[in-house]
């Protein structure tokens, strides 16, 4: 079984209107090469599910691919707010539904366990419960305690980026795992990019770091620097300089057009070349 695909084949497989869960966390291990390809495609009306979103959500909003965002957080961590997310929220350019970190996990887990909901106390006493139209207060069937029923989140597609994978679709994550396993298990089709493809025998040597199981993955794409400009521990750290340029570019229409033509509307090879090539990235970002 060989599940290798090209970036374009992955994008091809995602229809307009699809619900796409994206792994990683803010500026860490986002499947950015796949996200960029989706951002420059003609796909429309995507629903994006993220636990902790960052440049992924922001870029897809910036290029107009998104109708709806389900999120616990969207931001650039130490660098501040996400510009297109902020604009879209403030100008109501898309639909937004605020969840929380655990409830996104619980919603994915509900789909995995084929139950319509998961119960929790989280969001009681907060305004998240007021603005989130999907949650529902419920009474515990035993003691009558008030709980929140978190509905199942059922992504059509999950996009994740891992350190290593084999052609069968097993994936190794060496840094923090974030919610990638939940995304991979919950989605109808999981597409995984990786820094490097290894043989299955080599992959098995990683033991419990093999976190993505092939029974959940539909496609594998080998894309070195595939998480850039987010980091991919322990291979490379976040490219904060690139992200600062991104934030500046997003301040003006003209700046953003220039950013798009240089870093979005180009294939991955050209993207790397526009950073001075892999050697330059190595010197700045390899730890």
């Amino acid at each position, binding site marked *: 079984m060989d599940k290798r695909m090209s970036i374009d084949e992955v994008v091809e497989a995602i229809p307009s209107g699809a619900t796409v869960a994206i792994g990683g966390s803010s500026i860490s291990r986002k499947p950015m090469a796949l996200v960029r390809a989706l951002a420059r495609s003609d796909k429309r009306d995507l629903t994006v599910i993220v636990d902790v979103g960052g440049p992924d959500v922001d870029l897809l909003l910036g290029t107009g691919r998104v109708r709806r965002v389900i999120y616990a957080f969207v931001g650039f961590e130490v660098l501040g*707010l996400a510009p297109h997310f902020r604009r879209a929220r403030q100008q109501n350019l898309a639909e937004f539904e605020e969840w929380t970190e655990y409830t996104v996990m619980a919603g994915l887990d509900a789909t995995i366990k084929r139950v319509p909901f998961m119960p929790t106390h989280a969001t009681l006493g907060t305004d*998240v419960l007021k603005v989130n139209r999907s949650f529902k207060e419920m009474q515990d069937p035993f003691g009558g305690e008030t709980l929140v029923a978190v509905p199942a989140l059922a992504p059509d597609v999950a996009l994740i980026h891992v350190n290593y994978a084999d052609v069968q679709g097993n994936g190794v994550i060496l840094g923090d795992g974030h919610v990638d396993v939940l995304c991979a298990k919950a989605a109808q089709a999981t597409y995984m990019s990786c820094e490097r493809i290894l043989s299955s025998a080599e992959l098995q040597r990683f033991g419990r770091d093999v976190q993505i199981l092939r029974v959940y993955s539909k496609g594998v794409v080998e894309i070195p620097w595939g998480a850039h400009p987010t980091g991919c521990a322990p291979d490379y750290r976040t490219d904060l300089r690139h992200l600062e340029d991104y934030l500046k570019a997003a301040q003006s229409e003209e700046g953003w057009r220039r950013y798009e033509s240089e870093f979005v509307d180009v294939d991955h090879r050209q993207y790397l070349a526009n950073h001075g090539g892999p050697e330059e990235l190595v010197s700045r970002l390899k730890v």
Partner: protein
Amino acid sequence: MPLAPGFNIDEVVITAMARQLHGEVLVSSVTAFGSLAAHLAKRRYAPDLAVLSTPESGMDVTPMPTLTLGQFLTDVQQGIPLTMEDIFDAIFRDRFRIWINPSQIDQWGNTNITCIGDWYHPKVALVGARGIPEDTSHLSETFYYLLNHSLRSVVAQVDFRSGAGNGESRAFLGRFGAPTVLVTDLGVFSFDGPEGRMAVRSLHPGVTLEEVQERTGFPLAVPSGKIPETDPPSPEDIRIIREADPLEVRKLELMSGPEAAEKFVAIYERERQTFHATYPRVGKWGR
């Protein structure tokens, strides 16, 4: 800021934060201040703490404030890898502590990191509630800090409750997740005023009650008798903080504008070399 000679406000705040931590619990390292408080506490005040090097992983290593949330230390140092599920289980089981840095906090200890203005038509869309609803519905101690105690951040009522404080927010939660303490650049505050409202516990050296009240959006409860002065950091506290943060990442949180940008670039350039020098590769890669 009038402070006694020999220490800076960041050291006062971090030390005050560190002295709140106790017991055998996981402590997450999300911000530089939170990370340094955990580190100092572990070294001086609460040796049983299980300090994480990132928001979700790397248990029982020395956290080092970084621009990218300690991700690389997980792999470069050793440390026990945890999952997001582990983190939320620890929150639900009350084995977790975190210093939350909200955009707004109100007299009840409700906190906001979601938006300024109305959620549906935000004046400023911030980042989203992240995991704060989980913390404020489960932990027996919730810790907040602010570095810009002002009428904009310490308000009568938050624009949006990302986190549940006292008062009506407690309706279904009881004491689970109730606010415990707020440390700001002016003083230390608890939530044991009338009906669980914010009260002054101590003021930092050189700070007057009038000054604090002027910069607070509601009348503060004040203990009878003389208001205690916050215990200043000891020389040992200061030494530990400075040694643990040689790049002064913590200073970034106190800056803004061009000054912050310049500092940021300087840290970013030096960070990579420092990782190499400080933490030789002894993790999974060195096995």
